[in-house]
C-alpha cells in the first residue's frame, strides 16, 4: 500500500469534482434545498408533534448523507468507466486496494462535509440545535457512511459483473431502497413481507435510533448494536465480493470491455 498514490488519486478525484458542476450541485445545492424544504414543514409540524418533526428533519439530513456516501464511491468509478480511464488507471502502479481506498476517503470527506453544511443550515436557518445529540448523531453517521460505501462497492461489483446497463444503480440504489428502511414512520407500520426486506437494509438500523433519539435525547449501546452489525456487515462483505468479481472481470475480459 502506497499512501502517496492514494493521495494522488484522491486529489485527482477532487480535481474532477471541482470542474463537475453537476456533482457539486449534487453535493451542496440539492441537499440544502431538500433540508430547507423539509425544514419549513418541520417548523410547521413542530406545533403538533415536536419530536416527530425533529426526527423527520434528521432523517432527511441522513438520507442526503447516505446518498452522497454511496454515490461518491460508485459514481466516481462510473466516471472512470465512462471516460475510458479505468484501464489507464489500473495499468499504473495503483493497486486495486489503493484504488478503492482513495474512493472511500473521497466519499468520507465529501459526505461529512455535506453533513456539517446541512447541520449548519438547520441550525442557522431553522434554529435546530443538534449539539446536545451531536455525538450519537456522528456515530450513526459514521455507521451509515460505512453501510453506504459497502452498498456502493457492491453496486460497482454488480456493474463489473453484469455490465454498464446496470449503471443506473450507482445513482438510484439509495433512493430506491430508502423508503423501505422506515425513514419517516415506525418500522412496525410495515407489513410482514416488507418488514423482512427492511431488516436487511442497513439504513433501517440507522433510522430506528434516530427516531428514538428525537424522543429520548440519548441512546444506549443496545440501540447502536443493530446499526453496527448491519452497516459493518455490508462494508466488510463488499471487499471480498469486489475483489472476487474484479478478478473474474479480468479473467473474462469484462474489465476492458465495460464501455462497449
Amino acid at each position, binding site marked *: 500500500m*502506497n499512501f*502517496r*498514490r492514494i493521495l*494522488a*488519486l484522491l*486529489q*485527482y478525484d477532487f*480535481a*474532477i469534482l471541482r*470542474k*463537475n458542476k453537476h456533482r457539486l450541485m449534487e453535493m451542496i445545492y440539492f441537499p440544502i434545498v431538500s433540508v430547507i424544504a423539509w425544514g419549513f414543514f418541520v417548523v410547521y409540524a413542530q406545533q403538533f408533534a415536536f419530536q416527530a418533526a425533529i426526527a423527520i428533519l434528521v432523517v432527511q439530513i441522513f438520507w442526503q448523507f447516505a446518498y452522497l456516501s454511496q454515490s461518491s464511491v460508485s459514481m466516481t468509478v462510473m*466516471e472512470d468507466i465512462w*471516460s*475510458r*480511464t479505468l*484501464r*489507464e*488507471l*489500473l*495499468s*499504473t*502502479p*495503483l*493497486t486495486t486496494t489503493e484504488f478503492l481506498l482513495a474512493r472511500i476517503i473521497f466519499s468520507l470527506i465529501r459526505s461529512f462535509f455535506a453533513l456539517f453544511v446541512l447541520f449548519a443550515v438547520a441550525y442557522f436557518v431553522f434554529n435546530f440545535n443538534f449539539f446536545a445529540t451531536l455525538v450519537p448523531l456522528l456515530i450513526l453517521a459514521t455507521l451509515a457512511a460505512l453501510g453506504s460505501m459497502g452498498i456502493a462497492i457492491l453496486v460497482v461489483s454488480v456493474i463489473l459483473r453484469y455490465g454498464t446497463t446496470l449503471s443506473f444503480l450507482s445513482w438510484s440504489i439509495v433512493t430506491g431502497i430508502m423508503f423501505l428502511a422506515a425513514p419517516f414512520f415506525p418500522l412496525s407500520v410495515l407489513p410482514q413481507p416488507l418488514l423482512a426486506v427492511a431488516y436487511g437494509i442497513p439504513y433501517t438500523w440507522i433510522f430506528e435510533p434516530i427516531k428514538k433519539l428525537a424522543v429520548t435525547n440519548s441512546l444506549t449501546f443496545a440501540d447502536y448494536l443493530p446499526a453496527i452489525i448491519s452497516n459493518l456487515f455490508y462494508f466488510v462483505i463488499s471487499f471480498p465480493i469486489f475483489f472476487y468479481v474484479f*478478478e473474474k472481470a*479480468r*479473467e*473474462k*475480459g469484462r*474489465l*476492458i470491455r465495460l464501455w462497449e
Partner: protein
Amino acid sequence: MDEKIEERIEEVVRIENVGKVFKQEKKEFYALKNISFNIEKGEIFGLLGPNGAGKTTLINILLGMLKPNGGRASIFGYDVTNQREKLSHVVNSSSGETEFHWLLRGREILDYFGRFYGLSKEQREMRIQNLVDAFELQNVLKMKFGWMSTGQKMRVILCKALINNPKFIMLDEPTLGLDPDIAKKTRELVAEINKKFGTTILLTSHYMQEVEQLCGRIAFIDHGEIIDIGKIEKLKKSRFKDFKLEIRLKEIRSAELLKKMGFEISPSIRTIEKSITDEEQITQILNELVKNGFDIINVEVHHPTLEDYFLKMVEENHKNNHELQGQQGQQRGGKK
C-alpha cells in the same frame, strides 16, 4: 523492480503458449491460440495483423488487464498476471482506445499519471516539459481533454505513455489520427527513445511504412495465431521470390519484340514491366533493350513492400481459413 534483473535479462518479453478464449452468446471464440514469441532487449517489435486478429488482446494480457486461459507471459522475468506490481513502474502503454476524463486539462492528466508512477514534483515537471517540447503540446496543456482534437488527444496519450520513462512500452496505433508532420515527429521520437535509452517497444500499426521504418522484427498475427515471425526483409523474401522492373521508354516501337522479351506493356504511359528474381539481370535486360534500339527514359526497381506482404498474408490466410471451414463442413456433412 530489481534493476539488476532488468539489466541482466536479454528477453524483455517472453510469451509461451498464451491462449485466450472469450465466450460470446454461449459460443467460444479463440482470441489467441497458444502463441509464443519473445521480444529482446532494445528491440522495436512490430505486431501486424488485420482487425480482430488478437493484437489488442495480447497487449491487454501484457498490461495485466486480462488473464490468459493458458500459457505464461512475462516481462523482465515477472509474470504479467501475478506479479504486475513489480512491473508496472517500468512499463507503459498507449492505445487508440485510451481516453482520459473529459474535464481534466492536458497538464493535469500528465501530472496525476506521473504521481501514480511515483515521480517526484521535480521529476514530473522536467518530464512534462521535455514531452511538451517533443510533441509540441504547449497550447494543449491548458485544454480540457474533452475539447481536444483527435490529434491533440493522441499526443497527450503518447506523453502519458512516456511519462515514467518506461523500459518497455506498448504502442498500439501511436500515429492514428495525427497530422503527417506530427506523425513523422512521433516516429522519430519513438526511434530516438529506443536508440537513446534502449527502451524496448512493442508496436502495432496499420501504417506499413511506419512499421517498416521503425521495426526490426515483426510477427504477423491472424485469427489469434502467429502466422509468421522474423526480420522484415527475411519475411518479405520468403513470400516474394521476385521483384518488378519498370522501364519507361521514349516510344513503344515494337510491341511484338517487347512481348517476346517477356515484358508487360502499358502503351498509354509508355511503360514496360517485367518480374525478375535477381538484380544482376537488370544490366543484361537494359543492354538488350539498348541493343534493339529502344530509348530508355527511366528505370525503377519495385521491391515488395511490407504492405504487399501484409495483403498477401491476409489473402493467403483467409483462403486457408475458408478451405479449412469447407473441409470441416464436409466432414460434418459426411458424419450425418
